[in-house]
């Protein structure tokens, strides 16, 4: 696709996301008619419709869209940085790294305010990613090692998380719902809490799209073109982890979005890195918004955690990518 077509594609996906978002305002434990939603949106009053729309459904859907865009860009950055098509926040252990210390804080240090959880998540995610990248030699070792190292780090942290949950007693139910990944009952406050982190990641990726494009070739070529590896590698890694650190305290782990969205974007072949990033963010937002809508309407009045839906969508897509050879590595005869 050339630049114009790519922009149109991004526009279409954004419009589709908005449509899903708007459609999501209607169904729920109490179904609202189209007119009722419109009236509540245009002139909010104290009535039940407007409360449903403005305090329950709109913020959670917006949170889903924001989280999706953030996770997708995070996956894109990690994949570009390592030139490994498998890299994504879940598989590299970043998500588990963000989750485990937050659970520990929640159970053992209740005095730590929830406002600091993104910072805790950032530190944990950074630590986990460092271990994974150390194992995979910064993406220069055997590409499978990135996945195996990340999964091992995740299993390790998962065992600790479950152990801590055993101590949590009555809180464990609430923690588990968060651990399953979901947007139920998320408010404007939650949205505001994660927005800056996602914005940092997404806008940083846009600003640095030239550097990212040079990383796509190899470390050597990037260095030859004047990219300071020692500076930009850590910066890109940090930018990739920021959205996860912001999303994890609010929505828990939402699996496979960071892996799938960049691959779908690349299947559309946009021209240029900046457009690719835009497309990735839009697709991520669309996936999570739609998955959230499915998760909360499939079994009204109960709802599924959105993590189940994205995992059920993402797993088969992953197998498809593997089978099509899209996850093969350069110079690998697999």
């Amino acid at each position, binding site marked *: 696709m050339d630049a114009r077509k790519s922009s149109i594609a991004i526009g279409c996906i954004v419009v589709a996301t908005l449509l899903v978002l708007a459609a999501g305002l209607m169904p729920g434990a109490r179904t609202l008619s189209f007119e009722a939603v419109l009236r509540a949106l245009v002139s909010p009053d104290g009535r039940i419709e407007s409360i449903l729309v403005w305090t329950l459904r709109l913020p959670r859907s917006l949170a889903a869209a924001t989280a999706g865009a953030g996770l997708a860009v995070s996956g894109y950055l990690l994949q570009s940085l390592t030139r490994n098509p*498998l890299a994504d926040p*879940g*598989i590299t252990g970043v998500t588990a790294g963000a989750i485990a210390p937050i659970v520990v804080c929640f159970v053992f240090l209740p005095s730590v305010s929830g406002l600091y959880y993104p910072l805790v998540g950032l530190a944990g995610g950074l630590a986990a990613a460092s*271990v994974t990248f*150390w*194992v*995979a*030699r910064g993406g220069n*070792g*055997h590409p*499978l*090692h990135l*996945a*195996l*190292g990340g*999964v*091992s*780090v995740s*299993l*390790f942290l998962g*065992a*600790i998380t*479950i*152990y801590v*949950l*055993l*101590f949590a007693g009555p809180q*464990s*139910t609430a923690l*588990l*719902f968060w*651990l*399953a*990944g*979901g947007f139920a009952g998320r408010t404007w406050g939650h949205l505001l809490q994660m927005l800056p982190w996602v914005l940092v990641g997404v806008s940083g990726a846009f600003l640095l799209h030239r550097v990212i494009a040079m990383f796509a070739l190899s470390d050597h070529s990037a260095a030859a073109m004047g990219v300071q590896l020692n500076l930009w590698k850590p910066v890109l890694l940090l930018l990739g982890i920021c959205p996860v650190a912001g999303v994890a305290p609010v929505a828990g*782990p939402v*699996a*496979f979005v960071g892996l799938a969205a960049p691959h779908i974007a690349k299947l559309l072949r946009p021209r240029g890195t900046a457009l690719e990033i835009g497309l990735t963010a839009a697709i991520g937002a669309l996936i999570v918004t739609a998955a959230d809508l499915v998760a909360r309407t499939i079994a009204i009045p*109960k*709802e*599924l*955690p959105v*993590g*189940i839906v*994205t*995992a*059920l969508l*993402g*797993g088969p897509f*992953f*197998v498809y990518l*593997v*089978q099509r050879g899209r*996850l093969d590595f350069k110079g*690998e005869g*697999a």
Partner: protein
Amino acid sequence: MSLNAPAIGQPSRWILPAALVLVLLSFVAAVFLGIVDLPARDVLSALTGTGSPEARSIILDIRLPRIVTGILAGMQFALAGLFLQTITRNPLADPSLMGVSQGATLTVTVFLLFTVYLANPDSYSVNELPIAWLPPAGMIGGMLAGGIIYLLAFRLDLSPLRITLCGIAIGAVLHAVAIGLIAGWGSARIEIILEWLSGSLYARTWDHALFLLPFTIAGLAMLPLIYRPLILLRFDPAVARSFGLSYKRQFSLVLLVSCALAASAVGAVGPVVFVGLIVPHLARFLAGRHFPLVLPLTVVLGAVIVTLGDLIGRLAGGPEEVPIGVVTALMGVPVLLALLRKVP
């Protein structure tokens, strides 16, 4: 290369006897040590059938069954890991990395959901949990996950590397669904499944040991039959076929055996991660590439690791013991990461 070629550095003939002695020592230590301080004399008299009822109950009904269950499960995890590593030609394959454990988790969750929650909608009533049925339920899920791996290998015709990748993805999906179900469950009895999820030998009875015993015996009895295929499966399919191996049949057989071993063990003690991964490496480290020695050493060391891990967990945590799954994760991950770093 002949099949029994000694590898670089003939391993010491004392390794296997030494490992067997280690099993005995760890077994004895596990029987005599515990959070309840029983004098050695009381333990001995309890073992011979005399002694106070409390001591007898502690030794015969609490410590011994969990130790035996742990030994059996440890041997099964270790064998399953060795088999998976051999057939996927990937030194990092493991039941917990390839979806078998997660499959078992999912079916146990679904089973508990149906029997406890749906059968008694008011979830606060305390009723008898069908704990005796958990091992078979977990076993079914593990076998189903193994079936998916099989389909990937032969229907989609994937290479071992890709099978490993897909196994990781399938494990992640099954795990997400299981956690989602637990979260949606919202019952007051959630600790039951949490404790099972952490991989624990807590409150294991002779029933668990008896459930595992046939699988352990069958797995060990299969060893002479699949010994030669195991050696040949380490090669490329083309090479293995040129030695006269019916690759597909033997691959399926070994996959089936390893899934049955892993799934039944997960069913009985929960997903104890990394035992299947670490133990074969430990065995290879001690025995070199001498496969005739690696195989028995894997079995023996599996028993040692789980027994010692459980003992550490029992003694370290005080009254709230540390589940064996947490102990093996804590011990296993540094080893694993170092291994990954070493493999070029």
